[in-house]
């Protein structure tokens, strides 16, 4: 019976199990499960990750090509020591000069991933139930506890019921009705499957991180400096080499550079296989390797090319996961699930209960407008 930062409270079990270790283990795991499933805890982790990212962005980061070269890394370290003085060693030991790979950043990020997984596991049944539940006959409690409720008294006829059905259809709801013990039930839903989008976008986020992990461990990039007419081998890709066949700068009328084009020939096992152009924003792809233009040196007619050869298996997964995340986010936000349940008793009392996943204010207005419309039609019918 204690709180951790007001996040979790548990009640100790009244009955102690035979094994005390078993009791604490099961209590501890329940506590952790509940902690990691809480929205507030996820929000706290998000805050920690973003603060660390913000702090890390204010420090120079070791470029990947420097990190791979011990002598360049030592030189770089001396440079930051000169800049940050006595704090440099502390920041270095915390890994903040490569904060995206430091334990300080990865630990809360890992906890966030665990929280996302546990939160999804904790909620998926309820979400599926909400999305796939087709029960029309619902208990009394629904009409007492829903955020939007109304009760209308009418003559014991079905005109009000028909009016309700027409109004709901006009508003885009799909209707299901049933009768039980003389009582009419109606379930009106809009975007019924939309709650599932929350599960999809959490899954997509995990996929996105998996793509980033793939990129972190298995991607490679290699810088190539190729003088004019010369050939350079790509050491990561066996047998593949590039020849510099020329470089062109296209210019605006003002003589400012408009675009750069590198003409290269790909050589495999000593034989030229294809020629191609590499432009900024238009890399050249050959099998699984992509070639990018990084820069140039020299003077016209004798440009030395600086290219980047790279392979990233995580990139396609990152893009696919990002697209899935975006689509499911849009479904979740712009097509929210709304449900109105109705019950009409034989005496003519009509009970209504409504709830919406999102856009609470818009739904509140819609519900109020529906009730007003029903009352208006009832008055017209009574008058006639």
């Amino acid at each position, binding site marked *: 019976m204690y709180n951790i930062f007001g996040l979790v409270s548990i009640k100790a079990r009244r009955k102690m199990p035979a094994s005390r270790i078993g009791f604490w283990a099961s209590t501890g795991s329940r506590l952790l499960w509940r902690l990691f499933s809480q929205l507030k805890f996820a929000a706290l982790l998000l805050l920690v*990750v*973003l603060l660390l990212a*913000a702090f890390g962005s204010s420090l120079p980061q070791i470029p990947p090509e420097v990190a791979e070269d011990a002598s360049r890394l030592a030189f770089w370290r001396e440079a930051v020591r000169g800049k940050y003085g006595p704090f440099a060693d502390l920041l270095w030991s915390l890994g903040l000069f490569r904060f995206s790979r430091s334990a300080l950043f990865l630990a809360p990020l890992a906890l966030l991933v665990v929280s996302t997984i546990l939160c999804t596991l904790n909620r998926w049944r309820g979400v599926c139930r909400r999305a796939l539940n087709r029960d029309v006959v619902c208990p009394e409690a629904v009409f007492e506890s829903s955020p939007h409720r109304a009760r209308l008294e009418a003559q014991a006829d079905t005109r009000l019921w028909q009016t309700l059905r027409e109004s709901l259809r006009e508003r885009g709801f799909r209707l299901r009705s049933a009768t039980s013990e003389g009582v009419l039930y109606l379930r009106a839903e809009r975007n019924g499957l939309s709650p599932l989008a929350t599960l999809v976008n959490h899954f997509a986020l995990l996929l996105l991180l998996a793509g980033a992990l793939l990129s972190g461990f298995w991607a490679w990039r290699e810088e190539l400096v190729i003088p004019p007419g010369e050939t350079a081998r790509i050491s990561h890709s066996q047998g593949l080499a590039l020849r510099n066949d020329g470089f062109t700068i296209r210019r605006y009328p003002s003589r400012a550079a408009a675009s750069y084009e590198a003409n290269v020939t790909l050589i495999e096992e000593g034989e030229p296989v294809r020629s191609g152009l590499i432009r900024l924003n238009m890399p050249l792809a050959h099998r699984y390797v992509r070639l*990018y233009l990084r820069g140039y040196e020299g003077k016209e007619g004798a440009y030395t090319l600086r290219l*980047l050869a790279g392979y990233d298996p995580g990139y396609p997964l990152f*893009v696919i996961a990002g697209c899935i995340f975006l689509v499911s986010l849009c479904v979740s*936000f*712009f097509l929210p699930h709304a449900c109105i349940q109705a019950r009409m008793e034989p005496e003519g009392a009509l009970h209504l209960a409504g709830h919406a996943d999102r856009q609470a204010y818009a739904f509140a207005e819609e519900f109020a407008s529906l009730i007003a419309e029903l009352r208006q039609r009832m008055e017209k019918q009574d008058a006639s």
Partner: protein
Amino acid sequence: MLIGWAYGLLWIAVLLYIAYTALRRHWLGLGATSAATLSWGLLTAGLADRGLAAGHWPMVGRYEFPLCFTWAILTIYLALETAWHERRAGAFVLVIALVVAGYAASRPSGDKNPSPLLPVLRSAWLQVHVLSAVIGYGAFAVAAGAGLARLPARAPSQATAPSPDAEGRKWLPAAADAERMIEWSLTFGFPWLTFAILAGAIWAQNAWGRYWGWDPKETWSLVIWLWYLLILHLRPIRSWRGRRLAILAIIGLGLVFFSFIGVPWLVRSAQLESLHGF
């Protein structure tokens, strides 16, 4: 010239909205909306004219981007005002637009002259990435403006149909109206920001061979995205609605401002490496 007139009209619109908020005269409100709409029209025309002169979409650099940001704020706010017939948050939202436009106006003449695109910016992804970021940021600015309007209101947050402010502070939008605007703007802006980051990552992969490099600009766009993700996670918790939600939305706009004004300063002063120095 058109942009200058748009800026001047924006000042007039802000003053009229403030007068409307204080005096609640219908003709003042009409005048404010008309001035804001005219300012928006002139800004649209000015940006189009600039784009035609420069030969590219006018959304690059420290002059054009804030102008596009102002345009997005005006577009989203005027659309909401028209749909909901509620203009009491106008003074708050348009002050933010004025601050952003003022930043653009304060740029040196070198930044203001149209110039051709750098080779690295010559890509269709420029339009996709920057436009979606502008729309997302515009929505967040509207949320922050509504947040400013929500702060003084004492009525508790209720997810019910809008009602007059119980405390008689008729110069403010009702708490429910302000919160509806905050909620709508956040849920509209977040997917756009997500799309902007995704499009930026795809463009970065095509341009630089890596889709994420922890560049300061990239990191700060992630910081902003995480902040709004945090708000969206806190929103269902009842105790985090109302004034707290308003404060979170205002802080979010602060992060947005830091991203486009503060990060270039950070890169310069801390001598960081950044590929986003354009």
